[in-house]
């Protein structure tokens, strides 16, 4: 898959705009969900995701190594998410959102009774809420590793921190989340 992405990036550089569309379609779910974890509201997450890809479109010619597209994309996405989060926080945007806001959706797979689904949805909502209330640095690393499933190397590049720091911070973030959820489990 990595080679296919690199090929799409190169095709885009040659002027094939369809390749850009394919890149968007490949990454849109991950980036949209990353944005959703920051801004908690679907319409805002949609706008943020679009802004991220607009920046990618405009600055892709400056990407030095085509094989690093994924890390570069997440780097741009994280910067956008941080900026948007700060702006929204300043205007009190999050104060008007309920933590149990239905606009912060929970996706569940099938194979369960409605009661089981309801219970699971309830727990997952608690987990998501606990994640959103974590300090930014802990939240970021947890999302990148455990939700976005980036490798340690990728996280190290995206957050511009050494590999060892990634590992120790991730452990701290997981322990922190565990402690937040302990009383609710």
């Amino acid at each position, binding site marked *: 898959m990595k080679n296919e992405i690199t090929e799409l990036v190169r095709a*885009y*550089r040659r*002027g094939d*705009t369809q390749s850009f*569309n394919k890149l*968007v*379609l490949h990454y*849109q*779910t991950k980036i*949209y*969900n990353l944005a*959703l974890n920051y801004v908690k509201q*679907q319409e805002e997450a*949609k*706008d943020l*995701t*679009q*802004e991220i*890809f*607009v*920046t990618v*479109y*405009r*600055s*892709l*010619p*400056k990407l030095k190594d085509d094989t690093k597209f994924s890390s570069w994309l997440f*780097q*741009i996405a994280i*910067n956008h998410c941080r*900026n948007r989060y700060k*702006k929204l926080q*300043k*205007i*009190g*945007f999050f104060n*008007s959102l309920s933590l149990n806001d239905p606009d912060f*959706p*929970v*996706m*569940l*797979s099938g194979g369960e009774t409605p009661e089981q689904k309801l219970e*699971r949805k309830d727990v*997952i909502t608690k*987990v*998501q809420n606990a994640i959103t209330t974590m300090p930014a640095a802990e939240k970021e690393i*947890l999302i990148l590793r*455990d*939700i976005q499933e980036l490798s340690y190397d990728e996280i190290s590049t995206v957050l511009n921190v050494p590999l060892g720091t990634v*590992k*120790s911070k*991730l*452990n701290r973030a*997981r*322990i922190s*989340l*565990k402690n937040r*959820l*302990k009383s609710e*489990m």
Partner: protein
Amino acid sequence: MNTMDCKNIEELFSAYTEKELDAQTAVLLESHLSTCKACMREWDYLKETLQWIACIEHVPPPSDLLAGIHEKLEQRNIFSRFINWFRYANPTMSIPAAAMTVLLAFAGMSLYKNFFQHQADIPFSKETQTLNLADNKADLKPYLNTPTNSYQVIQKPDFQGFRFDVLHSRLQSKNSTNHPASINYNTRMDRGIINGFETQNNLFEAHSDLEDLLPGNNFRHHLTPDFMITLKTADPATRTRISQQLLAEKKWHPKMYKNDLFLLFLKSTELTNLQNTLALQEIGGPPFSNFPGPSNTDKMLMVAVRIQ
């Protein structure tokens, strides 16, 4: 290390889940867990937490996400054209261009108008342009003064022309088949997305998002708004409401700086809606015909709103 104590055992949990511990440490950890109920409980909590995280599934993005990206790219294109309209030549411009500037400085108002109308037909055809606007500096106009809220509209504060510094201005020709991103890269000053700004000597220094993301590039421009609206309110709720309303109106291309300063780029036809949003009786200023633009409805205005 022959034994483990409870104090530091949690530090190893992540590495243990990822199977990154060396064999000896893993055996010690397992041995400790089998004898220490408290640590075992913490380990169970962590496993459960990770299981719940793993249950979080990605939410599918909206189906019109891609279309919206292209819409935004197109808007930026229109916006950059609008900016081109108002740019000034840079201080190192050629002698003929400098001479042109002097001539224009001595020209009368009618000549100005003719010049703008002429430019409307060929807005993107020159390598560099020097545009100037008439200085319609108006007195401050107070509106709606109440004990808690007061509004005033300042039209063109310390107006020195609509200024947009362009270090180089190679433009996209109308028939260009070049790749848009390449054009963007080569003529970045013309196509910058303005997402932040700050006041300095009554000018807005605007910079593009690319500057944040790609440090070391010069994406800064100076802009002066057509209108500067200062709202005074002692009520935090009113402040928050207006801020949210301004930011929510995407077609105004709202940009916020330092929580109290907003920059809007809107069509002249949107001015009435802005007036309603801000609960102003009217927004003063010259008739729209004084603003350059291809047609009445296409005239783009730059409005700064400060909430004090």
